[in-house]
């Protein structure tokens, strides 16, 4: 009887292990396929000019020039909305966790709504942003893109920082107070403790924001130029991929893959450097 039990336990162990291997391999294979496709198709179009020049001859059929406009547009939109998103989200998290009680109905309701917002497709955000812009009388512009992307990433920020803030050891606040710290000084300690969480949230939201085409399609528009004011339309990398990919000319399609490759590289560089900085931060965190 005992032997038999041991044997079933062994089988269980093996099966679970197989499942884990299988899922890991699936994910890796998928990632490898994507990277292989964009590299294989895009490498021939990739050149320094792609990164450093503006497009010439139109983005749809043009074979010349680069996609600097889209790179700059994406960086503008993502940078601005990340900063605005953080400024809006951190107070929300503080309010949810410090001011509201653990079993507060308002906190429950807002967490639920942020979860729902998290799952809403980005095209809906795009449509909503568009309606908002019509209402405010703004044309497709950098500003419109920033507003929409900010709306898109706030739920990601709030929910991922919130998850970490909920585990926050309250002793730290007491420890800081009992040394004679004021509320503001204590807040700085709290932010230090939360900083790895904030960094992870930022990585997640930047990844989502930079790769999203649908939200910016109606709101930021597309242009061959680098925007120099908030009221001008701005090109973005996902749209550069989208438009060039639907071109009938093969060279232009190759340029789409090159643009995708650049986008992937930007995300990769950002994630790696983010992680490096994060490791520095999380060293001091109280577990």
């Amino acid at each position, binding site marked *: 009887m005992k032997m038999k039990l041991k044997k079933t336990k062994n089988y269980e162990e093996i099966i679970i292990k197989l499942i884990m291997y299988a899922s890991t391999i699936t994910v890796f294979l998928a990632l490898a396929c994507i990277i292989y496709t964009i590299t294989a198709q895009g490498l021939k179009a990739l050149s320094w000019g792609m990164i450093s020049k503006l497009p010439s001859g139109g983005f749809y059929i043009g074979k010349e020039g680069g996609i600097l406009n889209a790179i700059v547009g994406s960086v503008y939109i993502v940078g601005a909305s990340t900063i605005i998103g953080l400024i809006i989200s951190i107070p929300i998290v503080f309010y949810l966790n410090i001011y509201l009680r653990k079993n507060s109905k308002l906190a429950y309701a807002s967490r639920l709504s942020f979860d729902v917002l998290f799952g809403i497709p980005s095209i809906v955000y795009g449509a909503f942003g568009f309606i908002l812009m019509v209402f405010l009388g703004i044309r497709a512009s950098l500003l419109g893109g920033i507003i929409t992307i900010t709306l898109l990433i706030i739920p990601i920020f709030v929910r991922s920082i919130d998850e970490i803030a909920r585990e926050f050891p309250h002793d730290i606040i007491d420890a800081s107070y009992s040394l004679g710290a004021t509320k503001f000084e204590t807040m700085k*300690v709290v932010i230090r403790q939360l900083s790895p969480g904030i960094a992870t949230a930022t990585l997640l939201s930047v990844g989502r924001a930079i790769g999203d085409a649908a939200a910016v399609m109606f709101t930021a528009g597309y242009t061959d130029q680098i925007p120099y004011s908030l009221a001008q339309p701005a090109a973005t990398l996902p749209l550069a991929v989208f438009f060039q990919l639907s071109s009938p000319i093969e060279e232009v399609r190759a340029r789409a893959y090159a643009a995708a490759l650049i986008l992937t590289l930007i995300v990769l560089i950002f994630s790696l450097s983010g992680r490096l900085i994060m490791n520095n931060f999380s060293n001091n965190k*109280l577990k």
Partner: protein
Amino acid sequence: MKNYLFESFKNMFPCDSELANCRYFSPDKKFMKDGYSGIEVQNLNVYIRDNQILKNIDLSIPDKKITCIIGPSGCGKSTLLRTFNRLTDDVEGVKRSGKILINGENILDDNYDITELRRIIGLVSQRPCPLPMSISDNIAYGCKIHGIKNKKQLSAIVEFYLKAVGLWDEVHDRLMSPATKLSIGQQQRLCLARSLAVEPQFILADEATSSLDPASSRNIESLFVKLKNEYSIILVTHILQQAIRIADYVIFMYLGEIIEAGEKEEIFCNPKNKLTKEYISGSFS
């Protein structure tokens, strides 16, 4: 007069740091006077929402002694302790009446400077809680928020207090590494050093040894015994043996009231109240 405390401290923990000439927080005049400077509690009542946690507490806690507060869990020991440094201020729905006199001033007064109060009353909590910074920053943190900026002085303070708690030899080569990498016993000593660094007059310890292994607890206990020459230590504990080992003065609380208070020998050998007798003999806990 000015360096009185430091000089005697230096004799206790021989240390050749350059700190010798700077007692950095202006010494409280009343603290330095020879007269009585303990804690005096008069008719203290504390309510949290509709529950009365502390009932008519009248108490005087002697200076430069180890005072142990004993009693079953939920009897208000921790609340009493946290009322001393007004950490209860932030609890929702808390109401207080009565007085707590420290050095002759009522600290429950709204005008009392709460940051200064918390400087002169250090707290060591149940679970060691290092701040999310390096070992040396943990000690320097309190001094920095009270206005010491000089780097040289800060590092002298760090060295001095790490030596005082016997942590220097273990960590002097990794002062910049995160405090959370220390073992739990080391963390608790670090927390004690952190409280001492702002030069308190009292040390509150809320079951300070209950999450530690026996060796580390003994370590902390012997530190307390050493420190009682310079500080008044108020220790909440549910370990009777600990009270017997290190207390000078014992307070027994039950359901928010003080049942009996007195010298250790008196409480343990000759308790006057029936409840105290039962608690000490172990009939309930």
